[in-house]
């Protein structure tokens, strides 16, 4: 399409035939910058939530604890029986008996460091790591009930669910807001273009009088808007990245909003922000201006 060439190649004259209203320029530029800023933040939020959800569900979903709580006398044999059951279960990557110190560390908040746990009639804890396929929870429970009645399988679902749910909700909200912001960008660009064209009726009339086609007139307007949106969104994305870099980063990733900073390849998503602004604005402005031009006879 010749008109796309018109838009992408610099043509001083095409830019000139349409008057520049400094305030409309600023408005487009500023809107794009603000919206790109929001998009980068939403992206960062989504990515952070995704990482968080991933790490939570990774560390919790694939692990379970088997608790064998029998009277001291039976404890060893029951534990051995439980270990035996586990070693015959498909879908378990590894399992191991927690050492006394580990158990103590887990209980420390309640008992304090000084309690000699090994002397207590404590249950034994076996930590289980699932493999990719996972094991059959119900089957394992049934077998344990039969062979090691004192064993309780705790697969952490209880803890995991609300946290992972919250993380996915943030992730969802992030993408939802990206969608919303693009919707707003498209609507605004459409309105700004239409407003610009309909307040330049006289210019359009003159251009038509001297034989300009609709394509030519539209291209002159669209170019301006697409480039403003492109540069505005570059500025906005850059500003947002700087802000993200300046945010205090915390080692503790599990605290929500601590790890808002983008990581690794996630930064490469930023390239798409100005690009998508350019494309969206280009298409929106083009459709809007051709429709306005058709309505002005």
């Amino acid at each position, binding site marked *: 399409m010749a008109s796309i060439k018109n838009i992408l190649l610099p043509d001083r*004259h095409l830019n*000139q*035939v349409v*008057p*520049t209203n400094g305030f409309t320029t600023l408005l487009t530029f500023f809107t794009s910058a603000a919206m790109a800023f929001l998009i980068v933040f939403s992206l960062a939020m989504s990515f952070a939530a995704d990482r968080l959800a991933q790490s939570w569900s990774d560390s919790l979903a694939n692990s379970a604890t088997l608790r064998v709580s029998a009277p001291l006398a039976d404890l060893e044999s029951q534990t051995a029986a439980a270990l035996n059951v586990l070693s015959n279960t498909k879908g378990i990557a590894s399992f191991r008996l927690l050492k006394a110190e580990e158990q103590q560390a887990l209980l420390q908040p309640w008992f304090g460091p000084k309690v000699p746990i090994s002397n207590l009639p404590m249950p034994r804890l076996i930590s289980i790591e699932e493999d990719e396929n996972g094991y059959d929870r119900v089957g394992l429970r049934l077998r344990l009930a039969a062979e090691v009645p004192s064993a309780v399988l705790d697969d952490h679902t209880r803890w995991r669910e609300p946290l992972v749910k919250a993380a996915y909700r943030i992730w969802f909200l992030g993408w939802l807001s990206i969608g919303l912001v693009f919707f707003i960008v498209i609507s605004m660009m459409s309105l700004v273009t239409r407003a610009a064209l309909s307040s330049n009726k*006289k*210019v359009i*009339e*003159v*251009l*038509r*009088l*001297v*034989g*300009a*086609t*609709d*394509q*030519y007139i539209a291209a002159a307007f669209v170019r301006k808007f697409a480039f403003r949106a492109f540069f505005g969104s570059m500025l906005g994305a850059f500003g947002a990245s700087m802000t993200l870099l300046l945010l205090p980063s915390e080692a503790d990733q599990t605290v929500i909003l601590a790890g808002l900073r983008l990581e690794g390849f996630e930064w490469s998503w930023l390239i798409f922000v100005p690009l998508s602004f350019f494309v969206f604005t280009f298409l929106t402005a083009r459709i809007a201006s051709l429709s306005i031009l*058709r309505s002005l006879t």
Partner: protein
Amino acid sequence: MESVAYSYGEELLSELNISISQGSFYFLTGPSGSGKTTFLKMCYGSLIPTSGNLSVFGKDSSGWSRDEIAYLRRKIGVVHQDCQFLDHLNVADNIALPIKVSARNSLSDSVNLKELLNWVSLSHRSKALPPELSGGERQRAALARAIIMSPDVILADEPTGNIDWEMSQRLIRLLIELNHMGKTVVIATHDLNLIRFTKASVQARVLRISNKTVQLAGSDL
């Protein structure tokens, strides 16, 4: 042009049967509000007749696409009654606008431009913006813009309304010269002196709009 009618709601012009032949020189007169501008607008495709067949350069108006109208206008130079310009471009750029809009690579015509500016006595104002021009200067600039592409047809709506008699004579002489080069000229005007002056040097016909129709006026003017 066959039994062309135009109506803005009410009928303004009806049953026009006229054919303007290549290379002729016409004046269009009639009282204010009689439809002179409307007639010219139909000729350059700004208005489409509400009934009847209008054909320009052999093409029927009912079949014009939007782009065809644009191309048509490149062959017709129009001096609009309101003398509209792009206020953000200077006079020279405005006059050169038709070239840029249509071809875009015509440095050869820039010689034309200077001569043209001289012809309409606007050389000294070529860098001014249109709002800084006087009424007469604007009309002369509009005429210059209309003829820069050396179109086949020149339609001028009241080109001398704001211009003093001396300058009017000069402009009409320019148009007469263009007519001698084979171009069709149609001028809407109230100025009977202008018509008389022109008739002295070219075989100009006068069309009169009255009672919704166009008639060829006698030579009694």
